[in-house]
């Protein structure tokens, strides 16, 4: 490879006082490009700053660089002439290969010096032919100046470079980038770079440098903008994060925009922000990022802190953030960084969540009191706030019932409950899921989920024999049984779901509706039930008694399913008898229909609640009876 001295070696020889420096052809080409880069002709000497930059990019320690500058003679002559420059480059190569910085070492054959942190580094590293390099150097260099300066200003932070990964290079073709976030992002900054890059054959092989990441990410964002698959994300936030956030040094902190994006993504997978994303759903989602499975597995391990096979919103944000970081070339940490812990994220995550939660569900569950009792986890404290703000605690009864939840597997429940259209129920169990080490042994079947969902409401943690729940109940069955109860005297089976608390706005109508099953039962049930019901009934707002009469009239006539709707309709005309018939415009009908629907839902919920309460009441009565008999038995003994 060593060839006879060409132009490069002549000056080299002259510069070092007789040292014959022979450069291989590739070396020569390389060095001359680098030189012309640092020193635009026709000047004879390279500019100090660009040389300095180049040297720093070689990732050698500053002392070594100083040494190199001295040895190559630039210090002596005061400038970086071609000779000095070439020698310096050779010395850099030597240093990078582990040789000491001496003149002698450059006599060996050395690989090309590597300059890591430069924008167009990927090409530099691979040492491809000159023209190719030359083109790449000039074009991207100029366009990325803006971005690069920011980088170098940060003190040449050299992030650990992971082995070449394909992720970034697929971006323009691959699904996505952030749609919403994206563009606010560094767009103004990178746009100019983008336009020009667009033309350059800039194959970002692998983001050896974050610049590449964000740039190509933005590029991808532009091209993917029209696409509607906001799935896998790219780097974008990285850059923005550094510039906008005050935690610019910490790659593991999630910025506001990132968080919003993650929350939106979460929403696309799981509309209820307080519930979980199951393992399989999350797996599909993260697999789209095209990271290798072992890495995704590791990311999951890191982010699923409670090891339950599902991701809550903060866990999801952490996982997503790790994926983003990984795609940007960061090595995955061994343990989850502090800023990605769920507790840390929960507080921040819940703020936007809270607003959404308010709108999402019309019936917020959960008394705040339960949670401290059950779970010592701090994250729950913020979760409590959410229900507290919007939840309406109605009876103390409901409180007791739901208070000591010993549930272990409520996580699977919210998923099932989604299609029960009772979001409140979903929120309730989900917020309760925190427990140090509970294994979720439930299958994904509804029956199991419901089974477990029912365990919690019992105040004394006794085995609920009569509560044996489970099989998914038809709502119709409940109502039919309500009427049939008159004949068979059989209690309706326990409710399949955790009854949420109806919101205040709904109290009117649900309470109306609730009366209806009660009314069905009172004539038929045993005394204890009727007394229980009366208690429940009395607890309701006093307006009920007035409506009761309306109900009883309506009830005898209609079938159960229709009764709720008919009650509403019958009550409406009854309440406003002066409504002329012609006012039944379609608008009113629609309103009535929506009211009917709401009532039906609330009705179902309350019916379940009711039946469950009654079950409990029955049990409590049984226990009471048992205790009383015991007392009776004991009494004569003590007397004696």
């Amino acid at each position, binding site marked *: 490879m060593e060839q006879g001295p060409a132009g490069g070696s002549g000056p080299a020889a002259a510069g070092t006082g007789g040292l014959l420096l022979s450069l291989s052809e590739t070396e020569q080409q390389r060095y001359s490009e680098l030189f012309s880069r640092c020193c635009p002709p026709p000047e004879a000497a390279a500019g100090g700053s660009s040389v300095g930059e180049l040297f720093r990019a070689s990732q050698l320690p500053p002392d070594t660089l100083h040494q190199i500058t001295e040895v190559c003679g630039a210090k002596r002559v005061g400038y970086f002439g071609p000779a000095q420059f070439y020698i310096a480059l050779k010395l850099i190569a030597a240093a990078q290969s582990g040789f000491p910085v001496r003149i002698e070492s450059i006599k060996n054959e050395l690989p090309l010096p590597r300059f890591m942190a430069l924008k167009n580094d990927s090409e530099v590293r691979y040492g491809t032919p000159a023209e190719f390099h030359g083109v790449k150097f000039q074009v991207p260099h100029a366009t990325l100046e803006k971005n690069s300066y920011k980088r170098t200003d940060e003190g040449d932070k050299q992030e650990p470079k992971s082995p070449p990964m394909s992720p970034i290079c697929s971006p323009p073709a691959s699904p996505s980038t952030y749609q919403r976030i994206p563009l606010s992002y560094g767009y103004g900054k990178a746009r100019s770079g983008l336009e020009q890059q667009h033309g350059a054959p800039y194959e970002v092989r692998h983001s050896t440098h974050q610049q590449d990441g964000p740039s190509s990410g933005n590029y991808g964002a532009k091209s993917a903008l029209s696409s509607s698959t906001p799935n896998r994300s790219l780097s974008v936030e990285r850059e923005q994060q550094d510039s906008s956030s005050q935690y610019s040094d910490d790659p593991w902190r999630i910025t506001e925009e990132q968080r919003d994006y993650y929350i939106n993504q979460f929403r696309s997978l799981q509309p209820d922000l307080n519930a979980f994303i199951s393992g399989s759903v999350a797996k599909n989602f993260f697999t789209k990022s095209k990271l290798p499975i072992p890495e995704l597995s590791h990311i*999951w*391990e890191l982010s699923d802190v409670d*090891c339950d*096979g599902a991701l809550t919103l903060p866990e999801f944000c952490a996982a997503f953030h790790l994926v983003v970081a990984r795609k940007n070339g960061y090595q995955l940490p061994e343990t989850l960084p502090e800023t990605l812990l769920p507790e840390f994220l929960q507080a921040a995550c819940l703020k936007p969540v809270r607003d959404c939660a308010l709108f999402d569900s019309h019936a917020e569950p959960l008394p705040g009191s339960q949670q401290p009792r059950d779970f010592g986890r701090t994250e729950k404290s913020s979760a409590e706030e959410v229900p507290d703000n919007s939840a309406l605690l109605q009876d103390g009864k409901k409180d007791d019932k739901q208070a000591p939840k010993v549930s272990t597997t409520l996580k699977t429940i919210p998923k099932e409950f989604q299609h029960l259209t009772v979001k409140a129920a979903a929120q309730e169990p989900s917020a309760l899921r925190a427990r140090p080490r509970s294994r*979720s042994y439930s299958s994904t079947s509804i029956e199991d989920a419901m089974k477990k969902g029912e365990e919690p409401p019992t105040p004394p943690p006794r085995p609920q024999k009569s509560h044996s729940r489970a099989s998914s109940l038809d709502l119709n069955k409940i109502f039919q049984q309500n009427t049939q109860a008159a004949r068979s005297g059989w209690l309706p089976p326990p409710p399949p779901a955790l009854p949420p608390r109806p919101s205040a706005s709904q109290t009117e109508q649900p309470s109306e509706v609730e009366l209806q099953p009660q009314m069905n039962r009172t004539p038929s049930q045993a005394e204890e039930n009727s007394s229980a019901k009366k208690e429940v009934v009395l607890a309701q707002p006093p307006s009920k008694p007035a409506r009761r009469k309306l109900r009883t009239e309506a009830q005898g006539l209609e079938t159960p399913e229709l009764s709720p709707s008919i009650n509403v309709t019958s009550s409406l005309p009854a309440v406003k008898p002066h409504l002329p018939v012609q006012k039944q415009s379609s608008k009113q009908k629609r309103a009535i229909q929506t009211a009917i629907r709401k009532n039906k839902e609330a009705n179902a919920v309350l019916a379940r609640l009711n039946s469950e309460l009654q079950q409990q009441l029955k049990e409590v009565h049984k226990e009471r009876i048992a205790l009383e008999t015991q007392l009776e038995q004991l009494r004569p003994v003590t007397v004696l």
Partner: protein
Amino acid sequence: PSQCGLFCCQNYPLYIRSVPTENELKFHYTVHTSLDVVDEKISAMGKALVDQRELYLGLLYPTEDYKVYGYVTNSKVKFVMVVDSSNTALRDNEIRSMFRKLHNSYTDIMCNPFYNPGDRIHSRAFDTMVNSMMMQVC
């Protein structure tokens, strides 16, 4: 020196780790042969009581150099632990707790949706746990 192995129900290894790493082959051999003993035990027990099956199998096979302990989960995943006989201080309870820890870590791995049952286990968290556990024993 000790070794820890995890085998799936078809008896191929999901995870084997030795501390220290010399003589590893001998340990591998020991662990594999002890699988036979494990199978024998669970087939014997299985007929008697299916519900109350004890997961911890106890000392499977003592030789002059080392002792082998076994544990099987309800899904027929077998854990085998080989410890040096010179460790007389090691009590049964400690072995039980070690198996319990292994079992818990194993369940954590199963919770990971990216883990397919039957794959070799590459989890770093699991490795760390096993290493720390075995360091205590050695």
